[in-house]
């Protein structure tokens, strides 16, 4: 068991507007989210003495201007009015979205800071940026020498290749992805922050959607948005004096396995790589999949949720497609999944929405989606064969 189990907590959540038509730059949306998280915790900005983010642009070649395309530690340090003398910061590019939360927890445990602000800001780049589509001859150097000439510059195509292999290997069909997409949309319809809050989706809507990279269709892709989600992480003792019930951090894991596939990762090793994260997650918390009241599982592309159900041990390898049909993953089911709508229907917050919802569920703040008495919920991000990080939050320390 992790010796830091229950010693830190998430004490505040802040959302900016999640929009496809932003009226201000990403940096200002991030400031909105950070201020909201600070206010939600009942703190003042000047009390924030720790800062951490996962700043990466959503795809290779996307823009990199601070405050426009990405929001760095430096941007928030300069524009939020945090403590005059910040004691700790980190800008994480390994693992994934939970990784800065994990780093903040470890920093808090050793006393490096008192109140850490963690955010993830995401910009929706212009559809052609980075690819040079229709604009002369873009440079294909480095990795791109062996990607761009194959017309395969987007990760959606990589995911389509992996999903086709999954269907072949396990005999699954698109019905499994439809079940996941519809589940997420129903949950988003109960989430006032979700991009698709007011837009229901039927089974026909799913199957009639246009293909993007066959066999993945439009509704298998997360919805690219501009927005930011921020969290306050602090010690358990401090959290108990704040405004909200704390969501205690029970354990974490990060994907550390070496994958065999290099540039063209496919389905290979999704169990081993995802399992490397899950094994650490469960043993850190002293909890197992059976003890989760809900699972918030990354869905940047829809099949990833299915892979995580297997890799994290909620079902056996190859049984994910059966697992997600028949209502088991719905609110009120045996294992509610992505109860806030996921990235598919809330918007592409890269796993921060997953963490925020896990926090809400164990603190009775999940609105119409509340699972009565939820005591332990995991949030896992990334795609298991590639990367990832995950945490478990609990009602009690």
């Amino acid at each position, binding site marked *: 068991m992790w010796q830091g189990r229950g010693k830190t907590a998430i004490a505040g959540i802040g959302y900016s507007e999640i929009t496809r038509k932003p009226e201000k730059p990403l940096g200002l949306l991030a400031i909105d989210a950070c201020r909201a998280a600070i206010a939600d915790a009942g703190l003042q900005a000047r009390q924030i003495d720790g800062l951490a983010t996962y700043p990466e642009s959503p795809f290779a070649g996307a823009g990199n201007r601070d405050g426009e395309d990405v929001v760095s530690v430096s941007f928030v340090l300069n524009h939020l009015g945090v403590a005059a003398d910040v004691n700790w910061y980190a800008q994480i590019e390994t693992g994934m979205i939970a990784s800065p939360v994990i780093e903040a927890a470890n920093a808090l445990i050793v006393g490096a800071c008192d109140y850490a602000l963690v955010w993830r800001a995401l910009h929706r780049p212009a559809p052609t940026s980075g690819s040079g589509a229709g604009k002369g001859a873009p440079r294909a150097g480095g*990795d791109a020498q062996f990607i761009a000439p194959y*017309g395969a510059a987007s990760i959606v195509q990589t995911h389509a290749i992996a999903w086709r*292999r999954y269907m072949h290997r396990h005999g699954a069909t698109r019905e499994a992805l439809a079940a996941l997409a519809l589940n997420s949309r129903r949950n988003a319809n109960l989430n006032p922050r979700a991009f698709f809050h007011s837009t229901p989706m039927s089974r026909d809507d799913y199957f009639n959607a246009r293909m993007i990279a066959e066999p993945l269709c439009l509704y298998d892709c997360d919805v690219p948005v501009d927005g930011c989600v921020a969290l306050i992480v602090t010690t358990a003792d401090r959290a108990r004096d704040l405004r909200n019930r704390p969501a205690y951090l029970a354990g974490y894991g990060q994907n550390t396995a*070496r994958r065999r596939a*290099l540039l063209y990762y496919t389905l*290979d090793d999704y169990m081993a790589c995802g399992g490397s994260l899950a094994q650490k997650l469960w043993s850190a918390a002293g909890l197992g999949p059976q003890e989760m009241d809900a699972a918030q599982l990354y869905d940047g592309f829809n099949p990833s949720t299915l892979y995580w159900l297997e890799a994290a041990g909620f079902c056996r390898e190859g049984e994910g497609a059966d697992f997600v049909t028949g209502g088991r993953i719905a609110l009120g089911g045996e294992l509610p999944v992505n109860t806030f709508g996921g990235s598919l229907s809330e918007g592409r917050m890269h796993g921060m929405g997953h963490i925020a919802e896990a926090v809400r569920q164990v603190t009775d703040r999940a609105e119409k989606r509340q699972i009565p008495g939820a005591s332990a919920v995991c949030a896992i991000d990334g795609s298991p064969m590639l990367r990832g990080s995950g945490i478990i939050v609990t009602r009690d320390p």
Partner: protein
Amino acid sequence: MPAPIDYSKLRIVPDFDTAEWWAAAREHKYLVRQCPDCGHKWFPPIFPACARCGSLKPGWFQTAGKGVIHSYVVVVQPIVGAFIGTVPYVVAIIELDDCREAGGSVTRVAGVMLDDEPEVAIGLPCEVVYEETADPRIVMPRWRVSGSAANVWRFNE
């Protein structure tokens, strides 16, 4: 009928690790990296060290360019400018016949199939063909289905 790939919309820039690969492709040779110490093979050649034994002096192996389709995607929405007129097209991941190693690993390459896309399926054998581009320095390997699925080797998953 989809338009050909417009390679003029792609400026391929070989580098220290890859110049020899592109030079071989001009001579219709398909190279993968091979470790001189342990024999491990890998692709693409942008990784300058052996992932198996750590050797930092990778060499080359010339493959016969025959393999099996591991999986593929039918790209409907083009993202790379050179392919805007080419949709739909198939990008396949191919497991090379002569790059199978003990323990079940195999070297995989990616490539665009020729216009026999309707035939494409996981497990079919395929072979490389070379496509000249307007740039004499760049010859692009592509792939075509070369037989039926009988008796194909299966990757050890």
